[in-house]
């Protein structure tokens, strides 16, 4: 955005910059603006063109920006990601989509061995400004492989950055931000939140680089990202009825994790519960717990708790509600932390 546009928008009346959008609309608008402002951006994947993507995130973009900027590829994830590497080498800014999280697996070789390493391998001469959009996590009763939580897997890979927005405002700004960066970003869209509306201030994204306190509180910090943020906010409301003042921290960046904001929050509340949909073992909850231990060991009143999915393959729709952390399980996690007594 140029200086003058920024000033103009800042001066624009509040109602012009504040709008109600679903996350789907927010992401669509972000892509539209990125395509309009950066002629090197390309949006592509399976069914991204005429159909606008199975989640309609790219709806109308091909009509507006043409079928060289927004296009359908053959149905091959490794092909999509491998082609992105070459396009980045040719000076483009690819924004590829894999249709569903589980179908990133066929492209893991290209993501891990190529996208994540090309800048390193080439000593910084071949940057990979690729934003890989991955509709992520469960909650929509989809068939197998249509709901997975790959954040720990991606975050573990050197050379990748990982982010997940939790509401339309952040979706809009974080996608624009990610697409403007020179490094590869895995952009994990919580698909169960695609249709939820929220306020979007198009002019002011605020700080986009770290974690964000979405609800301040005194007694305990709930750490979450993606779709779990909204659930944690619900939990906080319910807990408040019992006089428990819960702070909710939206991590947003899963690589790199904003350890400072985490430390500030838990340093204040002295208790923490990490909530994620991914399986427990070697999940990001462990990373978060360690970061908290390191910065808040002396003040912590209880060990960090984790409320997560289980170490089972992502279950079928009928069992989904048993798998994804629900309100009761999160409340129980909170209870365990609050009732902890040193032995």
């Amino acid at each position, binding site marked *: 955005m140029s200086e003058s546009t920024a000033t103009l928008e800042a001066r624009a009346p509040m109602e012009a910059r504040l709008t109600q959008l679903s996350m789907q609309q927010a992401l669509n608008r972000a892509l539209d603006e990125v395509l309009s402002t950066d002629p090197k951006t390309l949006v592509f994947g399976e069914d991204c063109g005429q159909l606008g993507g199975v989640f309609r995130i790219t709806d109308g973009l091909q009509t507006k920006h043409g079928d060289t900027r927004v296009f359908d590829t053959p149905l091959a994830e490794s092909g999509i990601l491998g082609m992105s590497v070459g396009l980045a080498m040719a000076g483009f800014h690819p924004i590829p989509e894999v249709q569903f999280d589980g179908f990133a697996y066929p492209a893991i070789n290209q993501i891990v061995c190529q996208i994540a390493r090309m800048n390193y391998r080439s000593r910084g001469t071949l940057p990979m400004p690729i934003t890989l959009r991955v509709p992520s996590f469960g909650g929509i009763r989809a068939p197998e492989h249509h709901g997975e939580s790959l954040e720990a897997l991606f975050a573990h890979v050197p*050379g990748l950055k990982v982010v997940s927005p939790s509401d339309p405002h952040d979706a809009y700004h974080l996608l624009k931000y990610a697409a403007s960066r020179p490094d590869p970003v895995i952009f994990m869209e919580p698909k169960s939140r695609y249709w939820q509306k929220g306020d979007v201030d198009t002019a002011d994204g605020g700080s986009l680089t770290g974690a964000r306190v979405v609800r301040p509180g005194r007694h305990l910090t709930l750490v979450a990202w993606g779709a779990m943020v909204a659930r944690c906010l619900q939990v906080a409301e319910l807990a408040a009825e019992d006089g428990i003042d819960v702070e909710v921290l939206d991590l947003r960046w899963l690589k790199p994790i904003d*350890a400072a904001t985490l430390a500030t929050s838990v340093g204040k509340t002295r208790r923490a519960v990490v909530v994620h949909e991914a399986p427990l073992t070697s999940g990001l909850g462990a990373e978060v717990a360690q970061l908290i231990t390191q910065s808040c060991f002396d003040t912590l009143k209880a060990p960090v708790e984790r409320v997560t999915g289980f170490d089972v393959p992502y279950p079928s729709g009928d069992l989904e509600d048993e798998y994804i952390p629900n309100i009761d399980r999160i409340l129980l996690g909170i209870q365990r932390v609050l009732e902890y007594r040193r032995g």
Partner: protein
Amino acid sequence: MDSILPAVGTADTAPLGPGQLRELYSLMAAVRYLDTSAVAWQRQGIIPGYAPELGQEAAQVGSAYALDTARDFAFPTYREMGVARAMGVDMVAYMSTHKATWHGGMYNPPASRLAPIQAVVAGSVLHAVGWAHGQTLSGEQGVALSYFGDGASSQGDVHEAMNFAAVMKAPVVFFIQNNGWAISVPTERQVAGGSVAARAAGYDIPGIQVDGNDVVAVYEATRNAFAHCRQGNGPVVVEAMTYRRGPHSTADDPGRYRSLDNERIDAGVDPLERFRKRLLAEGEADEAFFAAAHDAARAEEEAIRIGIEALGPRPGNEMFDFVFQETTPVLENQATRWREESEHV
């Protein structure tokens, strides 16, 4: 050999002149010296490992000679030393990868038009397609030259790449060096469908087999493929039939899967010797020229060896410096911790 490429009548299809033929020979000689020396360096402990290309000089030099470094881009694997040399890449920087100095090599890929050395077989074949499609999108005339082996052709990425390239009409030449072996597995146990070139038909891509030991034939096939691509006709598959004469790598023992006798029979005539005889017979070069070419190759090899030996280890901080364009606080902390601990020791 078979060519189903329509004849292209452009200026760059003129036959090679005497100067170019001699240049090809000089390049092959330089590559031969450096290649055999690199194996010796490994034995002497100068470098930890190397993937030789003995017998593939014609395939590598001939194909790379068709490339225009002002506009084209080559995507190698780990065995394309001859390609790098023919393209004029800084050879100390190229060989540094075998010294374990830096994965991918120390040369500058965008400037030299050679992608980093690639250890994942078929890893870069799709990159070539993406880069080539980028040429189409920006209205440029560049062609991507993608190198891989008969073993690599079994990888799914090669099939995805050929299909993508054909659907998008991407200007990419898939250049297969079929050297008869993928480590210990011979081509007949590796490639179904007759040949890699034959598979091209399934994607409606012209597929050519060429005698990979004939440097001029390789050059002409590649040049025609480039012309085909530049005219907007989409990709071409060129399969150069050659033979990997020595081991797969300096860690390999070919005696476990083939005998020396078989090796001699299957390898055919040495491509360098064959070209020398041809130049002599056609009167394009004389013994004095060959002697001078070999002296130059020897001197060059020596200069590269001195350069390689002089290469010290990289400063440890570079380990952190090139992970991202924009580093992260986590990585900065790790770099700081590394520095403190390494100074402490």
